[in-house]
Every structure is written in C-alpha cells, then in structure tokens.
C-alpha cells in the first residue's frame, strides 16, 4: 500500500501547485458568477453595467481556461506517472512549465482586473473570445501566449517521460492513462496552433500598434479553430477519470481498454475540424464549409456515445461486484455516500442532458434560433460547468489525499457539496435554456429592453430569473463548501494509513485484446493533420482572399489614444 506522495514526492509537489492555482481561479470565478447572476436579473448591481463585461471576461477566462487547464495538467501528470510507474525525467522542467503557465496567467490578469479599477489605464474587457476589432491591452495577449506555450511544454514533459519509459520497456503496451495523456497532448498541439497564430501573429502586434488593422473574420475563424477543440481539452481528462477512476471507486473494472483507446483516437482525429460550427451565422463563409463542419461534429458524437456505454457498463460491473442484482436494482448497491463516486456520477448524468441540447446546437438550421442566446450558456454550464468542473471537484476528494498525505476533512460535507452543485445547476441551467428559447441574449448586462419583452413559452420571465438566481446562489455555496473543505483538510495533519493505495481501475478486456495499430500515434497524428488541412485550407484561403490577410479592418475598440499609437500608424501602413 503506497500513496502517490510516498512514491512520487517531487511530482506530488508540482501537482499540488497546479491544483491550488486551479482552486484560486475557481473561487474568484464562482464569486464573479454570482455577481453576474445578480446583475443580469437586476437583483443587485454591484458594478456599472459597462463594467459587467470586465467581470464576465474574468469569469470566462479564469474558469474556462485557468481552472480547467491547471487542474488537468495536474491530473495528467498524476495519470502518466502512476501508470508508467515512473517519475518525470527532470522535475525542474516540470516546474518550468508550471511557472510559465502561472506567469502568463498573471500577466493576462493585470489588464483584466485593471479594467475594474479606476485609475488603471489598462483593460481587457474583450471576453474570453477576444474577437477583433475589440482590443485588449498587449499584456493580455502576451500573457495568453505564454500560458499556451506553458501548456505545450507540459505536453513535451509528458512525451519526454513516456519516451524514457519506452526505452526501459521496449515491448510493453502503452498503459491506458498514458495513452490518453499522449493522444490528448497531440490533439492539443494541433488545435491550440490556431489561437497561437491569432494571438502572436495578429492580435499582439496589432495591440502594440505594429499592425494597423487585422481581418476580423480571419482572427475569429482562427479563434474557433481552437475554441471548439478546447472543449475536448477539458473533456478528455474528464473522460480519462471516468474510465480509470470511476470504475475503481464503484468497486469494479473498466469494461474495455481497447474501446477506450478507440475513443481517444477518434477525439484526436475529429475534434479539430469542427470549429466552423460556431460560425454557422457568420457572413463570408460559404455554406459548404459550414456543412462539412456540421458533418464532422455529428460524427464527433460517436466517441461520447461509446463512452456513455463503457462508463455505464463499468459502473454496473462494479455494482454487481458489490452484490447488486436485478435489472435496475444494482443501482442501489453503488457507493452513493462517497462524494467521489456520487460527484462523478451526477456529472455524467448532467453530461447526458447536455448531449441533448448540444445536438440542437450542432444542427445548422435549428442553431439559428439559439445562437448567442442564454440557451448556449445553459448548455455549457452543463458541459464544462458541470461534467468537467464537478468531476474535477469530486476527484479532488480522492486525489488531494494522494498528493498531500492528508485525509479529507469531511466526506459528508463533500457529499453535500456535490449534490448542491447538481441541484443548483439543474435550476440555473434549466432557466437559462428556457430563457434562450424565448430570445434572451447571453453576454448582456441588462437583458431588459425598452421596446419589447421576452415571452417564455412556459412560465414567466420572473420565474426564470428566480431559477437563475437561486440556482446560481446554490452553485456559489457549493463552491464555498468545496474550497472550505479543501482548506480545512490542508490544515490537518498527515495520516497516510487512512488513505487508499494509489491505483486506477483494471480492465475486464485489457490492452492485449486491442490491435497494435491503436498505439501507432504517429499514424493517427498524420491523419488528424490531413483532416484539418482538408477542412480548413479552403475556408481560410477564401477568407484571406476576400478580405486580405490584414483587411478589411473595422475600428479598434476601446479607442486608446496613446502616444505610442500615433507613431506606429506609419509603421502599420508599411505593413498593410
């Protein structure tokens, strides 16, 4: 019986740091989520409506990028080292990528918070999508670029460690968690390239005044080239936890290892050539390209549907091992008092609901009704806001003892916490979906208009507002319970004997049942690149052909009249 911290003390320290960074982001993000809920419904407006968008930028960036990515970097480091039974090659390198990610986040945070503080002349009220010609302070783009480079180095660290293991074990199959880490890393390299180009080649030089203008449709398309796949950067570690940890805490085994590999290969292949489905309503992109993106998106349902099967089958196996019987009676035999299990199970349940609203979004024509409405916000609070976030919180109750040696302060509070999140999200997301159907827009400080009212199909706007406020408050409460529980646990003493062994679920049908070609990552990467070229070369070419690499402009907003800008206009003309 060994815990993770005993086996890998140096790696455990890094993982602790990634987790704590993630939790700080979660705390601030949740607080701002509550402010948004109160502001939109006009229950309480703490800030000016024009400043609402600074709050929303921070909420989006800190939760969707900082919280998720720091946490998953820790999870991947745990999964890789545990399954290879080997430490990273050089932990100084591991600290280096962590440091770069923190540094990048801090730089980007300066103008993001600066926008809220009077007297600070920097701002980044551009939301986490930062569509040009909305313009942020250069530090925002610089920080973002450094953060992404940090994640690339993290991926390099995992690949490097894997290669070292490979030399020591030339004939073994890649262990499943490592396989998942590697496919996700390759996929991330491919998909984050889009945003890296948008930021480094266009937006950063433009914000510095080196370029006079950019092509808004081009930078937007590059953003979505990354913006949809980033969803899978959150989901793939979540799936990994559902595959390798959930069956274990349910008391059983993973149903099929080879099928899990198939799922991750499908993600590597299909996640990236779909981003244009966020642009169904964009002028300047031919219908045919939208159609291809739609088709790819529908096929991308496949790995998720397969996951649903395997996860349920594995959990059922666990229940039957625990003595469960009957057609549905086995459900009762599951460890519902364990916050790790219950949190993950509820997260998975919500994800199934999200799958339904997601299919609506993906249908090009139905999308017209819901695009940019509150429906979308309801949808992704089920996916990233619950399937991912609740899974991450639930596994914290399992992983935190592993990486600190300290047991969780209160598992009952943990159980109450995950249930509260589920209830709060049910209320908030339901109201958001229904509001969106009646046309209530997202990203709006005051969705109350002078000339018309929204009329929901069922109920009233007041009921929907109540759902959002009560749901949002419960979610905030849940986040406080979570952070409080983590904090109190950390102040406690170490007690290694009370902590289970660091391990993950074995498979009923193991790696040896799968064909070797599954592990041929080079092959899959080549096909993935080809698919991306096939779907993106023509639309990007057409966009550049239409508007020019840097045209047709628009006006930067907010207009900053700085001395630096006047000088650089001359430069910009040379470039343009």
């Amino acid at each position, binding site marked *: 019986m060994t815990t993770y911290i005993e086996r890998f003390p140096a790696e455990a320290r890094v993982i602790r740091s990634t987790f704590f960074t993630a939790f700080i982001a979660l705390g601030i993000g949740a607080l701002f989520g509550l402010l948004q809920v109160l502001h939109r419904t006009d229950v309480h407006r703490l800030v000016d409506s024009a400043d609402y968008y600074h709050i929303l930028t921070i909420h989006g960036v800190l939760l969707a990028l900082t919280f998720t990515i720091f946490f998953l970097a820790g999870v991947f480091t745990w999964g890789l080292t545990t399954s290879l039974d080997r430490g990273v090659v050089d932990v100084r390198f591991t600290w280096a990528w962590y440091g770069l990610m923190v540094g990048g986040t801090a730089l980007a945070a300066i103008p993001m918070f600066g926008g809220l503080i009077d007297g600070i002349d920097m701002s980044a*009220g551009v939301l986490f999508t930062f569509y040009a010609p909305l313009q942020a302070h250069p530090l925002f783009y610089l920080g973002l670029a450094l953060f992404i480079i940090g994640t690339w180095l993290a991926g390099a660290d995992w690949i490097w460690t894997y290669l070292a293991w490979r030399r020591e074990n030339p004939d073994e199959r890649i262990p499943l968690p490592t396989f998942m880490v590697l496919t996700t890393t390759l996929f991330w390299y491919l998909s984050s390239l889009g945003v890296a180009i948008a930021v480094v080649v266009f937006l950063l030089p433009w914000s510095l005044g080196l370029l006079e203008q950019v092509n808004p449709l081009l930078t937007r398309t590059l953003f979505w080239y990354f913006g949809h796949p980033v969803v899978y950067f959150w989901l793939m570690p979540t799936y990994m936890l559902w595959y390798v940890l959930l069956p274990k805490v349910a008391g059983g085994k993973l149903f099929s290892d080879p099928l899990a590999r198939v799922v991750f290969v499908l993600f590597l292949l299909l996640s990236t050539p779909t981003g244009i489905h966020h642009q169904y309503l964009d002028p300047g992109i031919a219908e045919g390209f939208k159609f291809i993106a739609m088709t790819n998106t529908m096929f991308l*349902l496949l790995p998720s549907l397969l996951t649903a099967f395997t996860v349920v089958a594995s959990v059922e196996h666990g229940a039957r091992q625990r003595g469960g019987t009957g057609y549905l009676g086995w459900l009762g035999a599951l460890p519902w008092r364990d916050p790790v299990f219950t949190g993950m199970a509820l997260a998975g349940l919500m994800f199934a609901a999200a799958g339904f609203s997601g299919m609506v979004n*993906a249908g090009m024509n139905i999308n017209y009704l819901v695009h940019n409405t509150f429906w979308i916000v309801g949808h992704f609070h089920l996916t990233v806001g619950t399937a991912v976030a609740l899974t991450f919180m639930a596994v914290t109750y399992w992983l935190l003892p592993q990486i600190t040696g300290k047991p969780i302060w209160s598992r009952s509070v943990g159980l109450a916490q995950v249930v509260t999140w589920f209830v709060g999200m049910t209320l908030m997301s339901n109201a958001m979906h229904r509001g969106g159907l009646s046309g209530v827009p997202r990203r709006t400080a005051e969705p109350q208009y002078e000339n018309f009212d929204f009329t929901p199909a069922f109920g009233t706007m007041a009921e929907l507002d109540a759902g959002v406020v009560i749901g949002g408050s419960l979610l905030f409460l849940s986040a406080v319970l979570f952070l409080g529980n983590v904090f109190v646990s950390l102040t406690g003493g170490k007690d290694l004997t009370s902590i289970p062994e660091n391990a993950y679920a074995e498979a009923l049908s193991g790696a040896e049942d799968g064909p070797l070609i599954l592990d041929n990552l080079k092959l899959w990467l080549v096909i993935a690149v080809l698919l991306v070229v096939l779907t993106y070369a023509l639309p990007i070419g057409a966009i550049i052909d239409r508007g020019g690499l840097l045209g047709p402009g628009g006006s930067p907003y907010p207009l900053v009249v700085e001395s630096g800008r006047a000088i650089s206009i001359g430069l910009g003309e040379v470039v343009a």
Partner: protein
Amino acid sequence: MNIHAYEKLWLAASLVLIVLFIGSVTYGAVGAGIAMVDDAEGVIDPDALDEDDRFADPRVEEVGENEYEVYVVAGQFFFDPGTFEPIEVPEHSQVTFYVTSPDVIHSFSIPGTNANTMVIPGEVASMTVEVGDPQEYGIVCNEFCGGGHHDMEGEFHVVPEDEFTLEADE
C-alpha cells in the same frame, strides 16, 4: 479485438443516429430550402460605408411585388434603421435584410424568431424572411460589442398593408 455483443449493438445504433441527424439537417438545408447566411455578398470597406449606395442611406426598399430589401448599418450601439425609427414592412411579404458594421462585430437578431445573423465589419450578412400577420418585434445585438452592448436594440414592425408607406413616398 473482441467487442462485446451489446457494445456492437450500441455502436451500430450510434452510427444510425448520427446519420439520421446529418440527414435531417441536410433535408432542412436542401429539401426544405432553409437558407443559411453565407458568402453570397462581396466584401465591403467598413470605413467607406457612405460611398456604398446600399449603406450610405440605410433604408427599406421595395424590389418586387411584396418583396422588400432592408439595408441596415449595425454600429456601436445602434441599428440604422431600427433604433432611431422602427424598420417597417407590410404584412405577408418577403423581406431580405442586408446588414453590415462600420466598427466591431455585432449581431442582428429578432428574438423569438430564427432571424439571427452575425454582423462582421467588412462583410455583408444577408438573410431572407417571410413575415406574416402584423406584429411588433424587437431587434437586439447578441454579440458583445463594447460597454454599451446592452443598450443596442431596435424595433421591427410588420404593419397592415394599408398603413404601410415607404419613407421615399412620404
């Protein structure tokens, strides 16, 4: 690779489902003729909208029997026409909107209907809708466009035939 029988069944069912989805959307787009916003319009210089005969004087125009075209400029933080005076068209007509932006990305969206498009500087979004009985609709911008985004609204009125006059005829 040995795949469990149930798993095979599930896989087959999933694939059928996916093909059905693609089929229904394809039918919607091709069969039922639901048109999408696309690249049909050429690019435009957002800094020189006043030199374009559609957008120099944004307006409603009659182009055929019961067919109207509406040219709209969506800027920070207004729709012209729409915000300062309502866009008016007669009942039971076919209306094509052409919308562009001089500054940042906006949207032109009529809540509760599927008339919804992004408005991107340099591009002209076009969208055709069939209007029915007289009714007053709102117009909102649902793409964040700056500090006054929530104030960006307008009105779209479908009016009885006998109450309709074109601005030009007034």
